[in-house]
């Protein structure tokens, strides 16, 4: 397993796999198979893939620990950057077809409609993460600070789920599904943070009169 994970080729394969949704959409567009409302189709498809890639990215750390596969870290940056890639496409379908590339109209819309505001926030937060995703930036910022900054992905993922939840009219199954995944991944982090703090904390002396052994 380790050999597979550390092989150069695996990275190439994962990279190509991550592009399948993109080329799937290009193929549909070229063959006129985007349905009656192509813009909406692209918006929904790219939106789905942002959430999926955010979930994949957030799943890396728990999976590394649970499966004892530390080498999975090699894919985290790529998955995160693909989340950003699909977020850029998603944003372009909004800025272009929805807002006719009119930036002032876009700002008004972002300020006015909560579901757009929160979606926009999720997107904007990903920008510094994408820019500082290089090894050079990790060094420049220092591991601790870099890690602090990149925790913004938690907010971004929550914002993405809320954005989706607020978009749908009444059938909330899919937003709740992504919400549950994000919640599990974030709660796992909270749990491991608490247990780490506990194990680091000095062992307390049992209160007098309380006997553990009975």
């Amino acid at each position: 397993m380790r050999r597979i994970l550390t092989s150069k080729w695996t990275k190439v394969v994962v990279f190509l796999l991550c592009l399948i949704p993109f080329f799937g959409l290009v193929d549909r567009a070229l063959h006129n198979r985007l349905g009656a409302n192509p813009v909406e189709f692209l918006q929904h498809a790219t939106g789905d893939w942002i959430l999926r890639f955010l979930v994949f990215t957030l799943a890396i750390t728990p999976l590394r620990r649970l499966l004892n596969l530390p080498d999975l870290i090699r894919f985290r940056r790529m998955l995160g950057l693909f989340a950003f890639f699909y977020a850029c496409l998603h944003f372009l379908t909004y800025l272009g077809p929805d807002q006719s590339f009119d930036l002032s109209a876009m700002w008004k819309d972002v300020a006015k409609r909560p579901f757009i505001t929160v979606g926009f926030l999720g997107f904007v937060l990903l920008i510094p993460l994408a820019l500082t995703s290089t090894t050079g930036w990790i060094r420049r910022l220092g591991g601790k600070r870099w890690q602090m900054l990149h925790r913004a992905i938690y907010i971004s993922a929550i914002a993405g789920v809320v954005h989706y939840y607020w978009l749908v009219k009444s059938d909330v199954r899919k937003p709740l599904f992504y919400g549950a995944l994000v919640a599990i991944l974030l709660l796992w982090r909270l749990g491991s943070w608490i247990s780490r703090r506990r194990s680091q904390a000095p062992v307390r002396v049992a209160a007098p009169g309380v006997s553990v052994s009975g």
Partner: protein
Amino acid sequence: MLIRKAPDLTYADVTPRSVYLNRRKFLQAMGIVGATALAGNGLFELASPSQTAFAATKLTGLAKSPFSTTEKQNTFEDVTHYNNFYEFGTDKGDPAKNSKNFNTSSWSVSIEGEVKKPRKFTMDEILKIAPLEERIYRHRCVEAWSIVVPWIGFSFCNLIKLVEPTPKAEFVAFQSYFDPQQMPQARYAGIDFPYVEGLRMDEAMNPLALLCVGMYGETLPNQDGAPVRMVLPWKYGFKSIKSLVKIKFQQKMPPTTWNRLAPNEYGFYSNVNPNVDHPRWTQSKERRLGEIFKRPTLMFNGYGEQVASLYNGMDLKKNY
């Protein structure tokens, strides 16, 4: 032996393009109904089916309407494969997929409440209420997409006049068909069924309000609200209730499905109004299916000339 006169041509007889139930499906259906039915009515039906398909039957002799727009119509494919009909699922493609076996035979619409002549209309009777017209209307969804559809029907006021509402009738309440057996997807929709809608009496009397039995020269496809629905082009699409089974005239303003779910988002009137935004969708613009960029939305969806006077003196920001 009695020699029967040739019966009048009925709604079910007009050049069916496809037969609704084939023999096998018919037997299955009868199996569900049960052995009693099979022995009694079932066998009789099998020998001489009294009802054929309503789906995809040509409607001819349609009058033209001065209310029709000359704008480019959307394709039949788009209108039948991109729409909302939450009883059959919440995805835009779901209604087409999940309504294929929707049984609309032996349909009737019951008229109740504050009328002198409460009654039931069969589909055949509905088709005889008034001459059928083709009306090419703009149709604007609250989700900010729009289509242009050649509907077929007649002004709803023709039906109203037949049943003679009493002076107490101030509102009309509409109810859709609902059968969880035929509409298993409905349980995920997040709204209560049966779907209900309503109009003020003067709105219902407006000649633009169409009782619709078809589109694109044919009877209504299942997914677009077969066999009979309302079309109210100056209101958001969800007001145009599908697969009508009950119409009740009453003094009280009736509850409406989306208003019940989210009163801050969907009002009773729900007139197309570019100046009053839905909390989530901007209503100033819309995307016509088939177009990339959005176009401005018109007040009352462009039907102000016919309906604006209905709302004189009303604050449409409050009465959205």
